[in-house]
């Protein structure tokens, strides 16, 4: 029963991922991406990673999706007249090259995943709160992984500053002058 749920969630996430790539309307792409993330969250939950399933829903399904949807709506990309790639498959070199690289990557990954056909013990109800117990995660993160943790915090700070610098409307010097003259 639980295994069946895994295959349903896997099918959902793969179909939604295909929908992201194949739909022409960016709003539809964003919603498909949300479906794919939720399917993956279900798989995390079934595999015994309860904390990471919650993080997946909160950060990916919440924060990142809102960011994408906000930009799509801000730029009015749902409007068919602003569609950036109409028709979808344009340019033979790009399409054959892209699909070729994709299939090559798929072949390599499938080859690499062979030989791991062990059927693990049921990790759904692992003792002590799944495979990502919060206490153990926190001890690892502030212990052995404290340097990458601090690097991530610096990265987040740099991102906040950089995004503000990028998204700020550039004022030309002349506009500033005229404003000062008016004032």
């Amino acid at each position, binding site marked *: 029963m639980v*295994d069946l749920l895994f*295959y349903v969630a896997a099918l959902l*996430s*793969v179909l939604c*991922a*295909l929908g*992201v*790539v194949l739909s022409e309307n*960016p709003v539809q*792409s*964003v919603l498909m991406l949300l479906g*794919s*993330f939720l399917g993956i969250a279900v*798989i*995390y939950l*079934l*595999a015994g*990673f309860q904390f*990471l399933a919650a993080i997946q829903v909160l*950060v*990916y399904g919440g924060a*990142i999706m809102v960011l*994408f949807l906000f*930009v799509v709506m801000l730029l009015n*990309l749902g409007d068919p007249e*602003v569609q*950036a*790639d109409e028709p979808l*498959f344009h340019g*033979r*070199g*790009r*399409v054959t090259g*892209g699909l070729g*690289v*994709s*299939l090559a*990557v*798929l072949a390599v*990954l499938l080859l690499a*995943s*062979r030989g791991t*056909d*062990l*059927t*693990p*013990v049921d*990790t759904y109800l692992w003792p002590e709160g799944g*495979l990502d*117990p919060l206490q153990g*995660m926190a*001890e*690892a*993160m502030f212990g052995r*992984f404290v340097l990458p943790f601090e690097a*991530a915090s610096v*990265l987040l700070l740099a*991102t906040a500053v950089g*995004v503000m610098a*990028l998204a700020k409307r550039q004022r030309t010097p002349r506009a500033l002058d005229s404003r000062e003259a008016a004032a």
Partner: protein
Amino acid sequence: MSVPTEHLLVLSALLFAIGVAGFFVRRNVIVVLMSIELMLNAANLAFLAGARHHASVTGAWQAEGPVMVTFVIAVAAVEAAVGLALVIAFYRRKKTVSLDQLTPTLD
């Protein structure tokens, strides 16, 4: 759930390949960013498949996989924020989000 690790890795490979295809084929830069998110998710799934495999072989829990996944999620959030800020700056200048306006076409 007692699904073999191979099936988790096959799912991860499929998601990654779809992300690669979207990255190269699509021209709408927002969809390209979404394809990158798909690839990061596939990598996360592979990390967790490995962590689960390790846990069920040795019977002991290891922190590496889940901790790595949290870092990947942080980097994915950073990437989305910076990428979308670049998209807005690009749109303001060119009034489009098509990558064709940014790079020469392939054919």
